[in-house]
């Protein structure tokens, strides 16, 4: 069984990689198997973990679970066209609850804490900043300010305002470049992982 499993994994990996040569039946088969298995895996996991594992097993201890299950059933009403409108109720609950949850979290963690950290005293809060820290603080403050100016479209980008916006573009470009570099690194890691499987785990060619 172990031999069969590793050959299937290798067959499907090479099937996906074969797309680099050209679109072909092997690739399509591998892709279809992946999509089908993923959907099945999610269904089984969520069924046994939630509907059975959490709701059915824990229903005696927590009456709130019945409310969740009821809302879940209402969501399924979408499958019946005549009463499909009922599914908007649980959807409204999800949208409202999530919006409220995110509003506070994002405002606190990603706005207030980051704004606070952008405007730092040049010499540090306890006068211990090194030259490197000072340069870093200035770069972050200038980059944030000029980046915000670039996205201010109520005033024409001319003169000092336009110059500041241009500085903002440079900072944005550097940011996108860094993100792109990291993305390339991540994608290469995925490729490294698969090739390590093919040459190492499967063929045993790596010492």
């Amino acid at each position, binding site marked *: 069984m172990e031999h069969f499993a590793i050959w299937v994994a290798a067959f499907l990996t090479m099937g996906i990689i074969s797309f680099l040569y050209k679109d072909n039946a092997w690739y399509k088969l591998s892709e279809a198997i992946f999509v089908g298995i993923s959907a099945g895996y999610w269904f089984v996991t969520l069924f046994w973990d939630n509907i059975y594992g959490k709701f059915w097993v824990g229903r005696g201890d927590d009456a709130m679970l019945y409310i969740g299950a009821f809302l879940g059933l209402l969501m399924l009403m979408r499958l019946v066209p005549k009463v499909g409108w009922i599914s908007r109720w649980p959807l409204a609950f999800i949208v409202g609850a999530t919006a409220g949850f995110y509003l506070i979290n994002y405002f*606190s963690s990603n706005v207030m804490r980051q704004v606070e950290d952008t405007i730092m005293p040049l010499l540090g809060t306890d006068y211990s900043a090194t030259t490197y820290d000072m340069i870093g603080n200035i770069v972050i403050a200038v980059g944030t300010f000029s980046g915000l100016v670039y996205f201010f479209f109520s005033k024409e980008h001319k003169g000092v305002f336009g110059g500041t916006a241009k500085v903002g573009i440079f900072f944005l470009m550097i940011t996108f470049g860094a993100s792109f570099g*990291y993305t390339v690194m991540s994608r290469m890691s995925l490729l490294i992982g698969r090739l390590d499987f093919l040459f190492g785990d499967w*063929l045993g060619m790596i010492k």
Partner: protein
Amino acid sequence: MNARMKEILVVAVLTVFCAIMYWGKVDGWMTGFQFSFGLSMTVVILIAVSLLVILYLTLRGKLIGRRVVFLYVGISVTLPFFMSLSQEIKISPEVQTLYEGIAELPPGSVVLTAFDYDPPSAPELQPMAESFFRYCFNNDLKVVVIGLWPQGPQQANIAIEKILLDEAIAAKNLQYGIDYVNLGFQTGNEFVIQRMGSDFKSMFPTDYTGTPYNDLPLVRNIKNFSNIDYGFNLSAGYPGTVEWVQVAVDRYGLKMGAGNTAVQAPQCYPYIRSGQLVGILGGMNGAAEFELMTGTVGKGTKFMLSQSFAHMIVIAFIIIGNVAYFRGGRKQKL
């Protein structure tokens, strides 16, 4: 011979080659290849020269096909597996602070480890998980594993099983339920973290094997985040580090470090400067640095050579692509 026949022939040859290699592995006579230092350097020089040739051809107006680029990337990733070269790894401040964060934990401290990734991200995150567990078990830290991604806890089990085979750790005779626990997966994304802030047990009534929460000595007395000494999140996206910072760190004051895929790392770096995260391991590079800090050589370190080679090839083809672009543009103007 037409193109179709050639393709079939190539696939047949590859299949036979793979079958022989696999048979060799199973039979025991295939123990792997390792280039000597001289051969490794020769290969590197040959690749560099071939890239110069491609650059020259591009300057002459002869453009290469995209399949050549794919081939070069594949070669640059694969060949370093067999090379006897090593790469210097420097510790970055964010990895240093993460290490210091766990190094100051006294033995017996409870570490919550959230596995929020699945097998596709394993090449980057699995080495981090293994190094982290190795450090925890070597230093008598108690590990509680959870996952907001369905396959996360399975990845944790794979890492734990591997680490428990280490001689030094096996000698400690660590017990499941006492020294480490895997509470499994729970759906609900950031709302799970929110509920854990008030009651762990409500989100994880049993562990991944179905053992009731109260029957697990390690977690029996853990009510919420106030009973956790350190949090470590391995994340490949949503839900992941951002959600842990927003809820567990900012609302409940959990001290936390994170290991991220390279794609996600830039999104999380601002949390270090603001003190919301103790440190970050960013991508494979972060994994390699952490392995160096913890004194182990794992796949993070081994894969870095492939990573660096692939980057060099990408940079080379960016240059070649730009040369082709500007040359083409100049031609059009003429």
